[in-house]
């Protein structure tokens, strides 16, 4: 028996006075059937996208939300796998040029897009970075020329991503090549989600930087896991600081392995006071680890951008001028803030590693 048809609506909008063509009329649906459409859409989409959703859930911070998400997504993902939808989704992803499970979009530059430095521009490994084979000034960053530009890699989380963008305003492009390698929502706590030591290796091998600026840790307010997702040290326990320090030292070791100098920027003070104690402890670890190697300097972003009485401020005093430098989230910097941060780090590199002052501009 044929079902009664709902009346039709949705004549196309036309200029006043013109008749709407009937062939474009849309058929309307009762709300109950619309609910079926919505549920089928969401269910089918969840089945098709289950592996990626599961991966995203696995990468989220440990807590009730993650536990519930995984409890729901694991069976859905298994069903998707069993009936082959997983493979269908994978085929669609591959067809549009995106590997399943890889962060980034089909057209968005992938995270592993690390610039390759030609061999003739590379410095011999371990020579301290002069590039011409000399070792006389092994403790200094080499003086760049327009032919052999200085290579600066900026690595870390979203703070480093912002810093990477705006460091290009500070470092002069005719003498310095900046490679922004910030990855949002990453840190050292979850190599199962993003493996920074591996990525750092690739940056060093491909780009062969002279100076590495590291800024990360804001996402590390959580227990430490290994690359397989197994917990290594629970947050808040006495195991956490030494385990974290090991990870920081490992990053520093990789970054300096081909002679690069490293400026490790500590976490800046945040508006959220609940994060402050932990961030301070992380900064102590960064500073301690930096003190072990002559090739690593610690930049104290906390003290540099706090208010004189020690609290959080979103403003920075530059001479007589007051400038808003932080975003409304109380953590990230705005464009001018990142520019000032880059300039201050460059100044430290001048003091610590003899970076040529003509490689960057100080006016903001």
């Amino acid at each position, binding site marked *: 028996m044929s079902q009664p048809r709902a009346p039709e609506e949705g004549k*196309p909008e036309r200029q006043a006075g013109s008749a709407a063509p009937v062939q474009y009329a849309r*058929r309307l649906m009762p709300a109950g059937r619309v609910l079926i459409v919505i549920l089928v859409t969401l269910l089918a989409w969840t089945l098709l996208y289950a592996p990626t959703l599961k991966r995203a859930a696995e990468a989220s911070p440990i807590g009730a939300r993650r536990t519930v998400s995984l409890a729901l997504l694991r069976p859905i993902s298994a069903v998707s796998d069993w009936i082959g939808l997983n493979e269908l989704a994978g085929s669609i992803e591959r067809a549009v040029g995106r590997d399943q499970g890889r962060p980034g979009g089909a057209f968005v530059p992938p995270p592993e897009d690390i610039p390759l430095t030609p061999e003739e521009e590379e410095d011999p490994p371990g020579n301290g970075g002069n590039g011409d084979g000399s070792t006389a000034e092994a403790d200094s960053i080499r003086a760049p020329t327009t032919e052999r530009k200085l290579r600066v890699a900026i690595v870390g989380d979203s703070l480093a991503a912002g810093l990477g963008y705006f460091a290009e305003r500070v470092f002069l492009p005719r003498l310095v090549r900046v490679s922004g390698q910030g990855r949002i929502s990453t840190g050292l706590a979850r190599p199962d989600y993003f493996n920074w030591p591996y990525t750092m290796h690739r940056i060093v091998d491909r780009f062969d930087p002279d100076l590495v600026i590291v800024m990360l840790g804001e996402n590390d307010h959580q227990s430490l896991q290994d690359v397989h997702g197994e917990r290594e040290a629970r947050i808040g326990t006495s195991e956490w600081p030494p385990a974290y320090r090991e990870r920081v030292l490992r990053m520093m070791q990789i970054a300096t392995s081909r002679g690069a100098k490293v400026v490790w920027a500590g976490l800046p003070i945040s508006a959220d006071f609940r994060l402050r104690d932990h961030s301070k402890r992380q900064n102590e670890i960064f500073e301690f680890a930096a003190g072990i190697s002559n090739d690593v300097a610690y930049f104290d972003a906390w003290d540099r951008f706090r208010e004189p009485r020690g609290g959080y401020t979103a403003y920075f005093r530059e001479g007589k001028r007051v400038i808003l430098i932080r975003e409304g989230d109380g953590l990230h910097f705005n464009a001018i803030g990142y520019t000032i941060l880059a300039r201050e780090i460059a100044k430290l590199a001048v003091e610590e590693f003899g970076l040529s002052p003509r490689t960057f501009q100080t006016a903001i």
Partner: protein
Amino acid sequence: MLFPTVDFAIFFVLVFVGHWLLNHQSHAWKWFMIAASYVFYAWWNWRFVFLLVGVSFLAQTGAIAVARTRSLRARLIVNGIAVTALLLPLAFFKYYGFLAVNVTNVLSSLGLESSIPLIQVVLPVGISFFTFMAIAYVVDVYRGDFEVASWTDAFLYLSFFPHLVAGPIVRPNELIPQLRERRDERHVDVAGAAWLILGGLFKKMVVSSYLAAQIVDPVFGDPAQRSAPDALFGILGYAIVIYADFSGYTDIAIGIAKLLGFQFPRNFDRPYTASSIQDFWRRWHMTLSRWLRDYLYIPLGGNRGGERRTYVNILITMILGGLWHGAAWTFVLWGAYHGGLLTAHRWRARHGAKETREGWLDVLRQRAATFALVCVGWVFFRADSMETAFALLRRLITGWWTPSESVTPLVVVTIIGMLALQFWPRGFGLWLQSGLSRLKPAPLGIVLALAMLLIVILGPSGVAPFIYFQF
């Protein structure tokens, strides 16, 4: 809660069921929708729910006070007090920091110390939108265009979640009568809604995200070193990003309202096909344009005070419209720029050539000129400072010897494609919607799921906040 998230999908299914189950019980339905809208808003920051309640309370109290006041003069005063009271939270949250910094710096340049505390005030999401709707409600009651609504209607009108955080700015007479009527549960335009939602998702998650990451952010981040092609396509790219982002959001909002049986006004009508700057403002953020006209330009005197006064009114309206978008001098300049263009357009219409040429080449020339002028304005809208804006514009002239870093074939194709879509016949979309509406629920659901999957795959991981959330 962002629209393109799993959180919102779960929220919406629950609200959809509750909404249609309670459709016959007007009172219960209203309370349910108010509660749902507050949950939606609290997802960002529950503390700001009190602000939304406060603004709604002020609006309703103001409207009642205006309606009960008999004398015309007293009504004017009460209306003024109510509007001022509604503007105070917006002024504090949005402009305090801007004012504090500028006053401090001016005093400092004079050798004086400022005692204004430099605090960073967190901007509540959507405050600009619900404040404008609240003002529209009070002023419409004052003008006699609208009767005072019940408390629940007024609260629901201001908090109704599809429009809450980034518009469209719906007038009281467009939404409140719909809140009072029972929705027709037999006739839901699912195909029209799906078209809007999927189109909005595509614009936001694929087009806007791609162009922003690929060219706009790098070019505006460091304009001084960029080549002229980078600068040019960075600006064109931003014209597409701001359109795709904002129109994408409002399309989703309108589509969601449609699924609940509500009709929202359109907010965009192919703005880059405009043949004059006046035409552009009839097509861009249409609900803001008419708000500015009805609640600012006309109260200022509109065109009733002579030619010069009209120009001044246009300039004031557009400068304040610019400032509404953000507390920065770049927005003020953007508003003044558009005010200047509108003034020039009006002056030319009165004193310039009397005959309008309508050959296709003339139309093309007018459209191209309008688009170019709009794009120059976008530079100030997007730039983080005046220096950045002027540096980028300079590179359009001086950057032809610098090699391009960001212009790729796909960037060019995406920009041209999105511009071409503005001229695409409407019939194609309507034909597709008509075809979708003829599918049975299960096949339709699977088609929509595949379309969603494609959008998610094409877009980058994670969802950047919509640009207009910060306004």
